[in-house]
Every structure is written in C-alpha cells, then in structure tokens.
C-alpha cells in the first residue's frame, strides 16, 4: 500500500471507531438518510420504468388520429370524412375507428369497448374478446363463462367470451372489450355511418406536418393528434409527476440536511474534547477535516447504496408496492403488470447529486468550524 492509501485507511479506521462510540445516533442517521434515498430512487426508477414502457409500446400507435370537435368536445365523425382523408397524397390508409366506454353497474368499472379492424382477430356476432382485468373483476373464472351486460334497468345483453387478451399486454389492454361492428352499433344505438374518430396511416413520417396542413383545409373543425403527440403526452406525464414528487422529496432532503448540519455543528462535549485532544497530540486542521470527510463519505455512500439497492428491489422485484395504491387510483380495473427492470447511469448520477450533494453542502461548513478551532479553546 502506498503511504497515501495507508493514511486514508487509518483515518477511516479512526473515524469508524469514533462513530462506533455513538452507535445509536449514527445508525439512526444512516437509516433516515437511506430512507430518503430509497424514496427518491423509487420515484425515479418507477417513473422512468413507466416512461420507457409507454415509449416502447406506443411506438406503434397510429401515425395520426383525426377527431371531430363540437362545443370543444370530442364528437362522432361522419363516415364521409374517411374518403376525404384517404384521398390526400402520402396517406396509405384512413380507417374509421369505433370505440367508446361502457360503465358496468355490477362492479362499477369502466370498460373500453372497441371494434377490432384487423383480419387476424376473428369475431362473430354475439362474441367478445376481453382484456385481462374484466374477467378478473367480474369473477368469470371458468372457461367459456358468458358476459352479461346491462345498459339500463331490465336490459340484459349476452356476449360469449371467445378469448381473453394475453396477460403480457395488460398495460394497454386490461379494460378492453372487443366486439363486432354490428354489435357495437346495436349496443350503443349508433347510426350506421358514423365513427368515433379516424386513424390515418402515413407512409413517410416526415410528411405528417404537410398532410395535417392539407387535412386542416378539408376538415377545418377537426383536431389532429399525431403519434409524436401521444408519445410526448406520456413522456411529459411521467416526467412531470416524477419532478413534482421529487420536489416534495427535496423538502425531506432539506429537513435532513438541516438535521445533519445541526448534528455536525452542535457537537457533544465528548466529541469536542476528542477533537481538542487530537489537535493537542499533533493532528493539524487538514487531518481533522480529512477525518470528518471520511465520516461524511462513509455515511453518505452507505446510505446511498442501501437506498438505491432497496429501491431497485422495491420497484422491480416487489412490484412497487408503495406506489400501487396511487396507480390504481379510484379505478376498479387496473392492469396487473411488472415493470421491465432497468438501471441507468444517468439516473444513478442524478440520484447521487440530488441526495448526496445537499448532505455534503450542509455538513462542510460545520466540519470546518470544528476542525479549525484552537485546541485550548475547544477543550475549555
């Protein structure tokens, strides 16, 4: 070992035995610190996990959705508009989408009812494909149990459940109910030639802006939502809430910083005496500062690592148990899914800066004040 390393090791040894003499206090400090790191780290890991999930999954969302607006609200769109949109150069296809909500009075849940427009999904009249959460919440536990829906008192419509969407896609499909177009129009009493909105496929993503400009001339009252808009909505949604929660956590960090500063400056008589003796036997200010920095480093690195590892376990192995109630909110149906585990250097660096820097800032000045005192003054 080089002399430098040996000196550092000896300083760390000394620091630790000094910390050990006040075990209870110091352990509680590390535990509180680790809890704060855990909280911030959980928030960050959870939101970035959600962000990534949304980003990947919605990368295949329709390039463009066209909505009709009436009174500032989403309205049904006439079937004639589909051809107008399809006629624009650069548009590969325009399809009317049929989807809506159904409030199930039996379990108080909202379903998203949708008509699939894809040859791979085979449905016949009276049949339905359900998302993973609907059978769970309605207690349709056995294979082939039909789903009865009631739109009003005395009404009962029966759907044969032919399939359940795989659990793997729960994040996007938990509350989906897929039925045929005829069933959809009958069930909701919809006129034959109207749609909920129109999805437009566009060959070249660079042309989206031009196509919207053209479409706006044809449909001046419509609203256009692009795939990038959708993706950005979700990125911002989780960014924003993460930021908000972290800001709240910063209040906790601040309080902790004040606590740490208080602890570092209001030394007990015993500690003051200790430093006085050290200086009397020949330690210089630099040595005392180095010793105290070791103390800070051990405390913060220990707390940081503990908090970060615990947060990883919490979010990715424990299913983010603390956040689950928030996520479920007031909804009856919620997707049952585990986040894709990930670790990212940006995140850990941010976490380090957000949690360790305030601690360092709060304790440096008190440390210096203690270290530079005269031995006789400190001892007195």
């Amino acid at each position, binding site marked *: 070992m080089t002399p430098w390393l040996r000196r550092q090791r000896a300083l760390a040894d000394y620091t630790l035995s000094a910390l050990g003499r006040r075990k209870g206090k110091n352990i509680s400090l590390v535990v509180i610190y680790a809890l704060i790191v855990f909280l911030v780290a959980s928030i960050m890991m959870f939101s970035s996990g959600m962000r990534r999930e949304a980003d990947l999954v919605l990368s295949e969302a329709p390039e463009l959705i066209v909505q009709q607006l009436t009174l500032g609200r989403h309205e049904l769109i006439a079937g004639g508009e589909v051809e107008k949109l399809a006629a624009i150069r650069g548009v590969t296809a325009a399809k009317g989408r049929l989807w809506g909500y159904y409030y199930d009075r039996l379990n108080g849940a909202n379903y998203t009812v949708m008509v699939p427009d894809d040859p791979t999904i085979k449905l016949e009249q009276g049949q339905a494909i359900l998302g993973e959460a609907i059978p769970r919440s309605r207690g349709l536990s056995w294979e082939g149990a039909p789903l009865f829906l009631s739109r009003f008192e005395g009404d009962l419509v029966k759907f044969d459940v032919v399939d359940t969407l795989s659990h793997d896609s729960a994040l996007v499909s938990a509350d989906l109910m897929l039925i045929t177009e005829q069933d959809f129009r009958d069930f909701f009493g919809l006129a034959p030639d109207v749609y909920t909105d129109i*999805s437009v496929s566009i060959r070249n993503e660079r042309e989206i802006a031009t196509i919207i400009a053209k479409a706006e001339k044809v449909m001046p009252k419509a609203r256009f939502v692009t795939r990038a808009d959708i993706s950005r909505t979700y990125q911002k949604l989780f960014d924003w809430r993460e930021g908000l929660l972290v800001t709240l956590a910063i209040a906790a960090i601040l309080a902790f910083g004040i606590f740490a500063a208080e602890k570092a400056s209001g030394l007990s008589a015993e500690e003051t005496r200790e430093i006085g003796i050290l200086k009397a036997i020949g330690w210089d200010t630099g040595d005392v500062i180095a010793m105290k920095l070791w103390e800070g480093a051990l405390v913060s690195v220990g707390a940081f690592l503990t908090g970060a590892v615990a947060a990883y376990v919490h979010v990715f192995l424990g299913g983010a148990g603390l956040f689950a109630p928030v996520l479920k909110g007031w909804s009856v149906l919620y997707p049952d899914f585990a986040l894709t585990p990930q670790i990212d250097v940006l995140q850990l660096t941010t976490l380090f800066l957000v949690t360790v820097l305030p601690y360092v800032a709060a304790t440096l000045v008190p440390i210096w004040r203690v270290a530079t005192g005269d031995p006789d003054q400190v001892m007195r």
Partner: protein
Amino acid sequence: MTPARRPTTPVFAALGLLVAGLGLAAIHVAVRAPGERARLAESTRLVKVLGLTDLALFTEARYTRHPSMADLHTAFQDNPMSFEHFPSGLFIAPPAHLPGGQIGQSEKDFPQ
C-alpha cells in the same frame, strides 16, 4: 493491531456487498431482458393491430383512460375552475399538445 480488529474491514466489506448488490441488479436486468422484450412485443403488436393510443393505467374517467385523446377542457372538464377529483390526476398532467391555460384570465388577455 491485528488486521481483523480494524473496524474498516467489516464496513468496507458491507459497502462492497452493496456495490455487488447494484451489480446483481444489473445482471438481473440482463437476465430478465429477453422475457420482457417478448412481453413488450406482445403489447406493441396489440397496439399496432388495434390502433390503440393509450395505456390502460387509469380507467376511472375518460380523460385519465385516454389522456392523449382527451377533450380540450381536460382535466378541468366539469368546470373550467374545478379541481381534479381523481387521485390519478396526481399522475396525469394536461396533454402536452394542449395550449397552456391560465387561471384567472381577464378580458384584456384576449385581443379584440
């Protein structure tokens, strides 16, 4: 002083273990990746086939179920000045593409 008595030994070992824990987490990420990719691929396929636009995270109201398709009044849709009343509002910001609104606009804010 015998080396075993040095207090840094157990503490550095514990810190080392924690670093190893982070390393294990990284390995866990790598091990789980193929399965997760399959799961995400299934979701992505469904999104493409059905033309889905939103995550089924909050199903209690239409502006939380489909935030990207929400009306222009969302999330204050019942009344321009009303506050959010669903807990998931804590997680949902107004959609990115909506113009930023202002509370307490006065007449002079609107060009005549």
